[in-house]
């Protein structure tokens, strides 16, 4: 459903990234990690298409949920101009979300850039188990506070492209070196497609399992227009699935079947 939700707070996380708390009871109570909302970023309908943004936290009792976003273009720029009290038209929660099994004892999340936001919600919701967090950023300026991860007592591994914080290089290098990618019950991956593909490859070679959150440009956001199509290799053969409705989370080996 789409709703006229109310912006509760707006925080500048770092450079171009913002955290927005939104009051909307239904979404707040239904949201699961990995799901997203589809947002009308412009009040005057200057932009026609909604923008998909992951839900990075939800407080069912408080009736609010959070999104975090980076200003990339016109839509996210307009979104960053919203202020507490403003009304926002959001559709959600959309998509399937991450699958999490109560039996999991040890998981890893591997995120790049804005891909870390949805993983934050997963970490918060996955309870008192062992969680390794691998976060890759472009530079230290881009490193943003993620409360779920920070307060969750996770083992955090950090990398930046320029070495200004954590390991210098790709987070997948850290993921490969410091750990055995196969030792987790599940690895959750979200970030740029090259990162995701490489991480999935590491997990596959180590004999583990993984889920990947995919990005694709969207039209309707609910599975009707087929612009967000994604090729998935399952045992039933190659299928075309929608990232918005069948995804955004897919079995890592189904979306990256060619990996080594």
């Amino acid at each position, binding site marked *: *459903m789409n709703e006229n939700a109310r912006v509760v707070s707006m925080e500048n996380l770092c450079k171009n990234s913002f955290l927005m708390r939104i009051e909307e009871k239904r979404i707040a109570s239904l949201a699961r990690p990995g799901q997203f909302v589809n947002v009308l970023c412009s009040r005057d309908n200057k932009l*026609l298409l909604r923008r998909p943004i992951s839900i990075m936290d939800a407080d069912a009792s408080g009736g609010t949920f959070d999104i975090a976003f980076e200003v990339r273009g016109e839509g996210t720029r307009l979104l960053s101009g919203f202020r507490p009290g403003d009304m926002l038209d959001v559709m959600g929660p959309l998509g399937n979300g991450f699958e999490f099994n109560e039996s999991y004892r040890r998981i890893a999340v591997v995120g790049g850039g804005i891909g870390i936001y949805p993983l934050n919600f997963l970490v918060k919701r996955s309870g008192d188990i062992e969680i390794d967090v691998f976060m890759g950023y472009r530079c230290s300026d881009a490193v943003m506070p993620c409360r779920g991860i920070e307060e969750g007592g996770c083992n955090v591994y950090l990398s930046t492209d320029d070495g200004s914080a954590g390991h210098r290089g790709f987070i997948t290098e850290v993921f490969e070196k410091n750990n055995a990618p196969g030792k987790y019950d599940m690895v959750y991956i979200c970030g740029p497609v090259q990162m995701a593909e490489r991480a999935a490859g590491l997990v596959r070679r180590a004999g583990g399992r993984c889920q990947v959150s995919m990005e694709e440009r*969207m039209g309707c956001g609910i*599975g*009707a227009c*087929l*612009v967000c199509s994604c090729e998935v290799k399952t045992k039933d053969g190659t299928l075309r699935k929608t990232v918005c409705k069948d995804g955004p989370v897919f079995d890592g080996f189904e979306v990256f079947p060619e990996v080594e």
Partner: protein
Amino acid sequence: MHVNTGVSIAGVRLANPVIAASGTYGFGREYGEYVDLNKLGGISVKGLTLEPRAGNRTPRIAETPAGMLNSVGLQNPGVEAFIRDEIPWLRKYSLKIMANIAGNSVADYIQMAERLDEADIDMIEVNVSCPNVRQGCISFGSTPAGVAEVTLAVRKATKKPVVVKLTPNVSDISSTAMAAEAGGADAVSLINTITGMVIDVNTRRPLLYNNTGGLSGPAIRPVAVRMVHEVYKAVGIPIIGMGGITSAEDALQFIIAGASAVMVGTWNFNNPRACIEVADGIECYLKENGMQCIGRLTGCLELNGE
């Protein structure tokens, strides 16, 4: 005052003149969670082909000023799967069902029309105007001869009402509309998308993987209204108008220009309740203007200086 927004097209009675446009509403399931499908006049389902199609590679969409380009390329499960998996579900609702068909060849169109003739649908919309596939389709729609050929073939293959969907990418849309009429079409629908391209100046490549796509949305509305007016002057069969409709006022422009019904496409993405709001707004307009039925509005445009 009680007003009647029902319209009849080729003997099919729609509860109101608002139809969800092909390719933007899937087979109705998804939007069914947002609106009561019984409140729509009809739905034109995602463009069907004889065999299932995977469509083009992504990105398939790009936003443009007051519009968007799409290059889905007719991804669909094929006409058989549609009949098997979609019609029974959709039939639970009162809205009329239009099967939108696109072929690589005239034989394709004939086969699909024959198959759909037995199916539980209300109308066939013959898509000779999809700009996103290499073969067939728009190449028929670009000339009066091509339109006439496909229309005639489909006309022979089915007793269902035949609506021919026209492309705006022509010099003179009234001539393709007349060809559809001559070929035996019961109605025409227009406009499909206008071919366009957006280039990423950093990569120096088109933003869409398919390079070009079809422009839809409010940006094209003035062109679509003009074309409906031209076609209204040229043919006697009913017109279903579309292109950038976002509100009842937009829809009324089409109706006044000559459309008997309208389709809402792209705007559903912006507002999932768009179809219903347009239908409700049309009803209000009739009430406010003391009109009992919508038929009187169709084509009532008065030109200036005449």
